[in-house]
C-alpha cells in the first residue's frame, strides 16, 4: 500500500478516536457547564456571597441597627417580599428589620464555613501527604492521633470545648471547629496518597531520578487531591449547618454578632405564633447549605471517570 493510502488509513481509523482535548479538568469543566444543578448552586452562592461581602447594597440598616422595640414582632405584610413596605420580612423580637438581620447574618456562617474547611484542607493536604508518602513512624503517630479524634463525636466535642472558651468570635469558632474537622479530611487524603503512591507513574518518576518533593508535588498531589477537594466543597455546607446548630445551642457566636443560627435561636420560643421568624432564616440557611452540597455533588460527578 502506498504511503498516502497508509496515512489515509490511519487518519480515518485513528482520528475519530482522539477527538477533542481530553484532559481530566477540561472534560470535567465541560461536563459541569452542562448541569443545571451546577448553575443553580452557583447563582445562589453568588447571591449569598454578595450579601456577605456588600451588605450595604441590600439594606440601609447596620447589624442590630435601627431597631425600634415598639415595632417588635411585626408580621410581614405578605409572602411576597417585593410587595413594598418598610419591613418586607417583618421585624424580630427587638424590633429590628428582619430582612436587614438576615442580610447581616450571612457573613458569619459563610466565613466560618470557608475558614474551617480551609484550615482542615491545608492541614489535611500537608499532613495527609507526608503521612501517606513517608509512612512508618510519622504515619503511625498521625493515625493514632486521628483515631483519638474519631472517638469523639463532633458535636459533643465542639459543645464541650466551646463552652469552656472565654470568647466566642468567628475566629474562635472557626479555630475550634477546624481543630475537630481536620482528622476526617486527613484520613481521606492519606488514603488517596497511599493508593497513588504505588502507581506505576510514580515509580517511573522515581527511577528517572526525581526527588521526593518533586514527586509529591508534581505527581502524587494532582492525582490524589480531587476527592479531597470535592469533599471539601461538600464540607463547607456541612460546617455551616453545624455552625448554625452551635449558635442555636448558645455556644457558638453570640450577640452582638448576627447570624442565621442566632436568629433561629431567638425564634424558638415564639415561632408557633410567629412562624415567619423561623421560616426566613431557615430558608436562607437551607439554600446556602444546599447549594454547597449541590456544587460538591456536581463537581464529584463531573470528575468521576466511571460516569462518563
Amino acid at each position, binding site marked *: *500500500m502506498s504511503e498516502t*493510502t*497508509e496515512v*489515509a*488509513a*490511519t487518519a*480515518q*481509523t*485513528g482520528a*475519530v*478516536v482522539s477527538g477533542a482535548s481530553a484532559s481530566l479538568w477540561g472534560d470535567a469543566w465541560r461536563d459541569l457547564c452542562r448541569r443545571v444543578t451546577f448553575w443553580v448552586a452557583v447563582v445562589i452562592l453568588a447571591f449569598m456571597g454578595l450579601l456577605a461581602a456588600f451588605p450595604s447594597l441590600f439594606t440601609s440598616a447596620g447589624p442590630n441597627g435601627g431597631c425600634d422595640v415598639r415595632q417588635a414582632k411585626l408580621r410581614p405584610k405578605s409572602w411576597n417580599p417585593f410587595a413594598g413596605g418598610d419591613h418586607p420580612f417583618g421585624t424580630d423580637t427587638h424590633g429590628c428589620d428582619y430582612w436587614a438581620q438576615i442580610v447581616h447574618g450571612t457573613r458569619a456562617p459563610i466565613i466560618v464555613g470557608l475558614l474551617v474547611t480551609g484550615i482542615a484542607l491545608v492541614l489535611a493536604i500537608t499532613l495527609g501527604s507526608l503521612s501517606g508518602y513517608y509512612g512508618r513512624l510519622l504515619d503511625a503517630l498521625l493515625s493514632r492521633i486521628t483515631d483519638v479524634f474519631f472517638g469523639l463525636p463532633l458535636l459533643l466535642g465542639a459543645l464541650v470545648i466551646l463552652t469552656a472558651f472565654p470568647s466566642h468570635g468567628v475566629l474562635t469558632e472557626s479555630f475550634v471547629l477546624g481543630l475537630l474537622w481536620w482528622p476526617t479530611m486527613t484520613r481521606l487524603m492519606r488514603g488517596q496518597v497511599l493508593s497513588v503512591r504505588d502507581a506505576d507513574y510514580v515509580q517511573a518518576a522515581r527511577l528517572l531520578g526525581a526527588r521526593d518533593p518533586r514527586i509529591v508535588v508534581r505527581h502524587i498531589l494532582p492525582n490524589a487531591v480531587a476527592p479531597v477537594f470535592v469533599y471539601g466543597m461538600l464540607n463547607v455546607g456541612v460546617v455551616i449547618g453545624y455552625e448554625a446548630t452551635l449558635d442555636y445551642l448558645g455556644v457558638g457566636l453570640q450577640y452582638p454578632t448576627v447570624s442565621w443560627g442566632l436568629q433561629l435561636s431567638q425564634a424558638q420560643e415564639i415561632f408557633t405564633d410567629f412562624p415567619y421568624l423561623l421560616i426566613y432564616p431557615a430558608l436562607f440557611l437551607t439554600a446556602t447549605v444546599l447549594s454547597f452540597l449541590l456544587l460538591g455533588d456536581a463537581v464529584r460527578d463531573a470528575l468521576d471517570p466511571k460516569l462518563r
Partner: protein
Amino acid sequence: MSPLLEVEDLHVEFRARGSAVKAVNGLSYTLEEGETLAILGESGSGKSVAAQAVMGILDTPPARITGGAVRFRGTELLGMPEKKRRAYRGAQIAMIFQDALSSLNPVHRVGDQIAEMLIVHRGTSRREARRRAVELMDRVRIPSAADRVNDFPHQFSGGMRQRVMIAMALALEPDVLIADEPTTALDVTVQAQIMKLLSELQDEMAMGLILITHDLGVVADVADRIALMYAGRVVEEADVEDLYARPAHPYAEGLLLSVPRIDVRDRELTPIKGAPPNLAAIPAGCPFHPRCPRARDRCSTEVPELRLVRTGEGASDRSGARSEAPSPSPSPAGGHRSACHFAEEVVSDGR
C-alpha cells in the same frame, strides 16, 4: 436437521448520548452438535457483545438488538418472553467469562454458587445440590473438592477459579457452552490445562462449544471451525486447517502473517497497518478496506457478502471479474466462506 445453534444476520447497537455505536453488524454463524467453533477477533470486533446477545443478557438499554435471529435447535430465542428464555439460560446454553475473580460472587461460598444452579433450575434440595457441587468440582479436577467446597472465590488461584466457573456452567449439562476468553487472564501453562479440560469435557458431554478468543495459538489446538470477526461481522469462516493453510480474506492473511515465529529466521514482524475502526463511524463498503493491502475502488463502496469461496479452477483474474465456473459447493453449514470481493485472489496468492 437444524444446527444446534444458529445466528443469522444479528445486529446490535449501543445508544449513548445521541450517537449509535454498531457493535454487531450482520453477524451469522452456525454451531453443530459436538462442534467447537472458535470466534476470533480483536478487541472491539463485537465478539463478546454478540455472545451476550445470544445469551440474552445484554443491558437493554443502552444496548438494543436491532435485527437478526438466534435459533437454538430451530427455536427462535430473540423476542421470546423473558420467563421462557430464562429456562434456556444456564440449562441449555451456558456461558463462562474471562476473569473468574470478578465473575464469581465474592461473598458466597463456591459450593453454594454451583449448587444454586441446581436449586433454582431443577428444584434440587440444598443437601443434594451441595453433594452434586462436590462431584462437579471433582470433575473439573479441583483437588480436595470436598474440603474446598466451602471456600470463597478469593481463596483459589486463577486457574482453579476458572475451573469453578466451568463446574458452575456445566452443572445442568447444557447443550452449548459459550466460553468468552476463558484463558486470557491466565498463565500460559494454566491456559493449556484449562483448554485441555474444556476439550475433554466437551467430548464427555457431547456439547457444542463456542470459544471466543483473540489468541490464534489457542484456537489451533482446540477448534474445529473458526469464524473470524471484524467490525461486528464475520469476515471469514472455515475449518481450522483451511483457514490456517489457505486464508481467503486479507484480514486473516494479515493476522497469520503478524504472528511472530521462532522457526523462521530473519523475518520482520509484519503487523496489519492502521487501527481497528471506530464503531460509531464504520468505514463504508468493506469495513477492512482502509487497512487492506489489496483494497480497490469496489471495496470502498460495496459491502462484500459472506459467501462460499470458489476453489480450484475458475478463480478470478486480477481485474476482479467474477469467475464463471462454479465448483461443487460443500453443504451449507461448513465450507469455506469469506466476505471479501477478491477472496479467490487471496487464496491463490497464498498457494
